[in-house]
């Protein structure tokens, strides 16, 4: 499970992905990917005719590709990941120019046993959906999947509680080369003049703090995350007399990955990709159940 093929998963890294939870897909057949691609392509063309697809130039021809990501799964119980890509080839261009990737979205389950265990046959569990590209394409692809497989998509917001888990966990990971700071961004939006606070800690110092807090390697408890956060709050309060705990944690960022409360993540390091995806799968499943 540890070493996913770096080449196959390179497309995931360093992009901002918008997160959704997806209920199980009914009647999905792995063997019919080509058919699905054709059907989705026709659906998009039809919607364009109706004038519903905006941001798409009239001359653009949308090509749809669906593929399986055999590597993107945690255990044998997980379904393999499913990648959807929308590319354009301008009809106007006479030379055989390369297709331009317009939008990607992929379905994934990383150790999502909690969900797949309890689901009847004929349902495929891929609870996490990640998109990169214009919102209008996401809406198109989403509607087609909803209609075809009777599933339901919902934006996956990330609570401050989960963000603090992420920052504590990721701050503790070891990185060989010089890492970027461990940054927490807080917002106080309801003041008459809204205030944002960025609190960035040197990665070595953040890791040193976490290492003294975490008692059992490989295991993290809510208590430990709370202590870690309380330490950071206390250090801040000592200097500024401000109670950071009263502000809303909206974004966390480390050398491993960053996450925003609106459900947007960026993963920077392939080494920890399974761990991050596992956490996100868990969040998606909680939202579904």
């Amino acid at each position, binding site marked *: 499970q540890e070493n996913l093929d770096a080449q196959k998963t390179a497309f995931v890294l360093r992009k901002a992905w918008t997160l959704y939870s997806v209920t199980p897909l009914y009647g999905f057949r792995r063997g019919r990917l080509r058919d699905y691609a054709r059907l989705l392509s026709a659906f998009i063309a039809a919607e364009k005719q109706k004038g519903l697809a905006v941001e798409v130039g009239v001359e653009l021809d949308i090509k749809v590709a669906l593929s399986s990501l055999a590597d993107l799964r945690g255990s044998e119980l997980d379904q393999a990941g499913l990648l959807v890509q929308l590319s354009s080839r301008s009809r106007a261009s006479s030379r055989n120019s390369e297709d331009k990737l317009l939008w990607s979205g992929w379905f994934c389950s990383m150790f999502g046993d909690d969900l797949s265990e309890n689901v009847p046959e004929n349902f495929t569990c891929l609870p996490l959906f990640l998109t990169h590209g214009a919102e209008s394409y996401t809406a198109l692809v989403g509607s087609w999947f909803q209609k075809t497989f009777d599933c339901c998509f919902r934006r996956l917001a990330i609570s401050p509680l989960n963000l603090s888990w992420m920052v504590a966990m990721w701050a503790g990971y070891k990185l060989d080369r010089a890492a970027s700071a461990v940054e927490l961004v807080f917002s106080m939006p309801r003041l008459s003049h809204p*205030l944002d606070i960025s609190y960035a800690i040197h990665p070595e110092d953040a890791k040193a703090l976490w290492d003294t807090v975490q008692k059992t390697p490989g295991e993290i408890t809510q208590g430990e995350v709370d202590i870690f956060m309380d*330490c950071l709050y206390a250090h801040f309060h000592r*200097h500024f007399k401000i109670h950071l705990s009263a502000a809303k944690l909206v974004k966390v960022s480390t050398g491993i990955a960053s996450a925003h409360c609106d459900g947007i993540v960026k993963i920077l390091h392939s080494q920890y990709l399974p761990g991050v995806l596992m956490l996100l799968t868990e969040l998606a499943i909680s939202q579904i159940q």
Partner: protein
Amino acid sequence: MDETVAEYIRRTVLKMPRDEIKMMLQKWGFLSEAQLQTLNFHQQKDNISQEVVQLCEENSAGIKQAAALDIIYNHIYQNKRMWSVYQMKKSGEEEEYFDIADFKKKFKGRIRSALKNVTITFKEYEDNAIWIRVAWGTPHKKPNQYKPSYVVYHSQTPYVFISASVLKSNLPLLCQALIVASNYRDIREMELRSHSLNSLKDIVFKRYSQNFQTYSPKPVQGWNVEPENADRRIVHENRSAKERIHRLNQESFGCGPQPKLEFAQYRLDTMFKSDPKMDVLDKKEPFRCLVKFSSPHLLESLKSLTPLGMADAPLSPLLTCITHKARNYFKIREKKESFVSP
């Protein structure tokens, strides 16, 4: 008319909001009132700018005039730029009479002696502000009009406000020219930056209401309005607490409106201290952090934290010292029990 000048004028007009173009052209004064009358300001901006360029062609506009138009735009939209503050130091002599012509001559002379390809433009405003626009070239290239540096100098003060272009390498030459022209000995950059030029002026010219105002609490009124069964001591506590917070806020921030800053940044190089019972980090080296506060109006925002209970009153001196220390960039080290900012 030079094609590059025409294009530059066209692009400058395009930047302006449509309903302000006439006013800016009038301020510019290069086109006659009769010429301005011929312009249709109700059409697309693209067309307006083309027509303006036509008229400039008739008047044979050169780069000097184009630069003057750019200053007008940037003076009105000064808050789109990021300004840094520099302080100049005199050699200790008597205050000399300031001669604007002499200043301009020396400034241009100093810059041109190092770099021939520059466009230097001056404009004086009523508030004694001298605006200087410098477009920089290289020994082999004409000046880049699209990335000029702006300097605002109030001759009665030792302060200069600079909105440098992206070409930072020209900054030393710019600074040198300023001290030569103004007869100062030295210039240093202050740790104070903002988009609001006026607020920076308020801070360094001390035009805001200062701290340490005395505040006399109003006599507590309306005891009778409280619900009958409320514990009077609790109500009194609340009121006292509120008044205390209000008074401390006044002492920290003063009564008047705060200068408008958008951010403050603190590099913390202090120790991490915790309750020994918590059994956490106990390093001998500093816990290195970088904290950045941002808000459309930072000081008012910080002021509002204590009444809401989001911060303890009085607010930390690290925050309340921003205006009287005239800085919003800090490096904080530990010194015994208190913090020092070098």
